[in-house]
């Protein structure tokens, strides 16, 4: 009876914490500090000493500022995340077949990935034919968009268009809706890739127009959507590009929030009210396999955004404060070696995103490190989400890690890191100026190099790459999908015929209107992009006109 709980201690003076420290030190030989990808030293144990925040002020309830625990009261209990798988390959009819199949399997939202020729602002007859449709669907006209979306109820399906400035895919979709008699105010979805700054700094992928022109078109686009598409999210601020390019999770969150500030300021300068545009801002992030770090990244991001929208922009509508985000599991973490291991990686990444409180999720297929995913790989990716939701019950409890000493301390530490990088960007004059100066590009390049060196030195294990390797035969890997060359040839022939059959005068008038709008800052360029798409102009023609009027963007590259 009354046996003291600390009977094993050396002396009566030693506390439980001291005893643990002594035993830990004795038990861990050569214990070197463990540092996460964002550069935060992670301790072996967290206790109440490590987090003494205020529940109401720092965490709060889900659906209440500062939203650390989630942006909605019901979170995944009320409405599970959208399963938004990115797809796109081959011709519009190939895409449509795959899309309808994915919808039948449980995908709840459409996403459209166009061919790289589309991303670069060209039509199919302007590029090397070998490259057509290998990474996305070749869609250049309203006819193609009708084929892509055949059988999809536009009024009931959320559509994400991977559609950089000048947003021709959305314009083609609006033309399709008009033809079908679907009211524009019923359309919901997101202009993914509207964040031109992330294209500039990270993947050099999607911009086709000089920085100044891209800046104006984005604000025009937001203004147009706010007027005509009340359920559409015109602004998707992208952290995925920077993190895939090598930024640490903290840097990537910081660049994204800094870019969001830039876009919000541009809208404000245009005379829009914060509560008119901020509710339509969404975010898109990469989710690496660094589980706790990613969860903390998302929790910190939500908290910072709630503060910025309220304090810096004076937003009054809670919808303006909510940090809505789509997550994509990180392709950079996947390996070509022993590719089935990627299923395990994607599972961990997806758990991080779900516990981090995302609103929509794309899980990569295990074979994405080999090429565009196979249907087999894509099905496992969708089912990974189904398993996590319905077998593992990850949706039962909201923010289940909230209150964990480690998670709360790490959320605070990530917030501090993120704010430090944001301060650097602010000191450079904001994100637009920082990109012009090459600041984020330099930081991303250095972080990419440093991560690669950790892999090569063995400090960072990558299973199958620098540890646990096995001999693999080439025959063990299955063949990958490629577009059918005959189908692609007839697609090109049909495109040529389409162009010849158009009303040349209507096309010319629309192009002239577009050029005039580009030359006149008082006009809305995107309004004319929509008119041009309806008039039968092709994607490449619209981009060519705007490139001519607004200048072509060159990547600012540093090595």
């Amino acid at each position, binding site marked *: 009876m009354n046996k003291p709980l600390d009977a094993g201690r050396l002396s009566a003076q030693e506390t439980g914490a001291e005893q643990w420290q002594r035993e830990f030190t004795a038990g861990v030989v050569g214990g070197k500090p463990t540092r996460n990808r964002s550069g935060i030293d992670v301790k072996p144990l967290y206790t109440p000493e490590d987090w003494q925040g205020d529940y109401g002020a720092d965490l709060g309830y889900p659906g209440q500022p500062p939203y650390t625990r989630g942006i909605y009261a019901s979170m995944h209990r009320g409405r599970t995340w959208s399963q938004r798988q990115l797809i796109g390959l081959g011709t519009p009819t190939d895409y449509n077949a795959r899309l309808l199949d994915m919808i039948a399997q449980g995908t709840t939202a459409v996403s459209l990935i166009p061919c790289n020729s589309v991303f670069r602002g060209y039509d199919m007859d302007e590029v090397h034919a070998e490259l057509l449709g290998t990474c996305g669907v070749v869609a250049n006209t309203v006819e193609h968009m009708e084929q892509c979306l055949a059988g999809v109820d536009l009024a009931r399906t959320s559509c994400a268009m991977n559609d950089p400035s000048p947003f021709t895919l959305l314009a083609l979709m609006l033309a399709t809706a008009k033809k079908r008699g679907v009211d524009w105010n019923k359309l919901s979805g997101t202009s993914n890739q509207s964040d031109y700054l992330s294209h500039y700094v990270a993947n050099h992928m999607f911009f086709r127009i000089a920085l100044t022109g891209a800046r104006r078109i984005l604000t025009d686009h937001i203004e147009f959507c706010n007027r005509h598409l009340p359920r559409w999210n015109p602004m998707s601020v992208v952290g995925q590009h920077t993190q895939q390019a090598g930024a640490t999770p903290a840097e990537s969150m910081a660049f994204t929030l800094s870019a969001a500030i830039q876009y919000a300021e541009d809208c404000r300068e245009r005379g829009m009210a914060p509560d008119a545009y901020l509710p339509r801002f969404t975010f898109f992030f990469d989710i690496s396999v660094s589980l706790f770090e990613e969860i903390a990244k998302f929790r910190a991001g939500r908290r910072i955004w709630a503060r910025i929208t309220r304090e810096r922009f004076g937003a009054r509508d809670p919808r303006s404060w909510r940090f809505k985000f789509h997550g994509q599991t990180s392709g950079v973490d996947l390996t070509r070696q022993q590719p089935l291991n990627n299923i395990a990686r994607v599972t961990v990444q997806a758990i991080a995103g779900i516990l981090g409180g995302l609103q929509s999720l794309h899980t990569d297929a295990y074979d994405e490190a080999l090429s565009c995913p196979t249907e087999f790989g894509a099905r496992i990716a969708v089912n990974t989400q189904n398993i996590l939701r319905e077998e593992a019950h990850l949706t039962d409890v909201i923010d289940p890690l909230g209150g964990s000493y480690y998670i709360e301390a790490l959320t605070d530490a990530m917030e501090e890191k993120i704010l430090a990088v944001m301060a650097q960007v602010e000191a450079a004059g904001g994100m637009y100026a920082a990109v012009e100066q090459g600041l984020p590009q330099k930081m991303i390049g250095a972080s990419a*190099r440093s991560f690669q060196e950790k892999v090569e030195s063995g400090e960072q294990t990558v299973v199958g790459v620098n540890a646990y390797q096995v001999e693999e035969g080439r025959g063990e890997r299955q063949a990958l999908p490629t577009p059918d060359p005959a189908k692609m040839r007839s697609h090109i022939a049909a495109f040529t015929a389409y162009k010849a059959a158009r009303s040349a005068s209507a096309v010319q008038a629309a192009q002239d209107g577009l050029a005039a709008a580009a030359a006149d800052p008082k006009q809305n360029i995107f309004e004319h992009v929509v008119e041009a798409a309806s008039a039968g102009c092709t994607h490449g023609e619209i981009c060519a006109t705007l490139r001519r009027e607004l200048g072509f963007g060159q990547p600012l590259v540093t090595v």
Partner: protein
Amino acid sequence: MTTHPPKVLITKIGLDGHDRGSRVVASFLRDAGMEVVYTPPWQDIPAVVKLALEEDVDVIGVSSLATDHLIVPKLMRSLGEAGLADIAVIVGGIVPDADETMLLEAGVAKVFHPGSALEDIAAEIGRLTSARRAVNA
């Protein structure tokens, strides 16, 4: 006999802009003492040939993450037509097995896949440079 370091052109042709790989490789090779000519993505094949000729590079490294390697055979032909068949071409990135065979048959010296060590890439460039200079000596 000259012992100047290998001179290598790191570039991307085609449509893709993802340049993490090409930048990491280029900065590593430069720090390893090589002379590195680096281009932004989206180069035209004639521009690459012209640059290789003007800079007299030993090796061209093409990064391909989104099927742009499918036009590398066109680059090989253009190099041949310009009398630059002695320049070794290596490809790094996401290259499916069947495409690797196609590239090697088109005259590509080596394909590096994700997970390749930077040291190995540097060693291969060194070896290809010595071979080229031995032939041209």
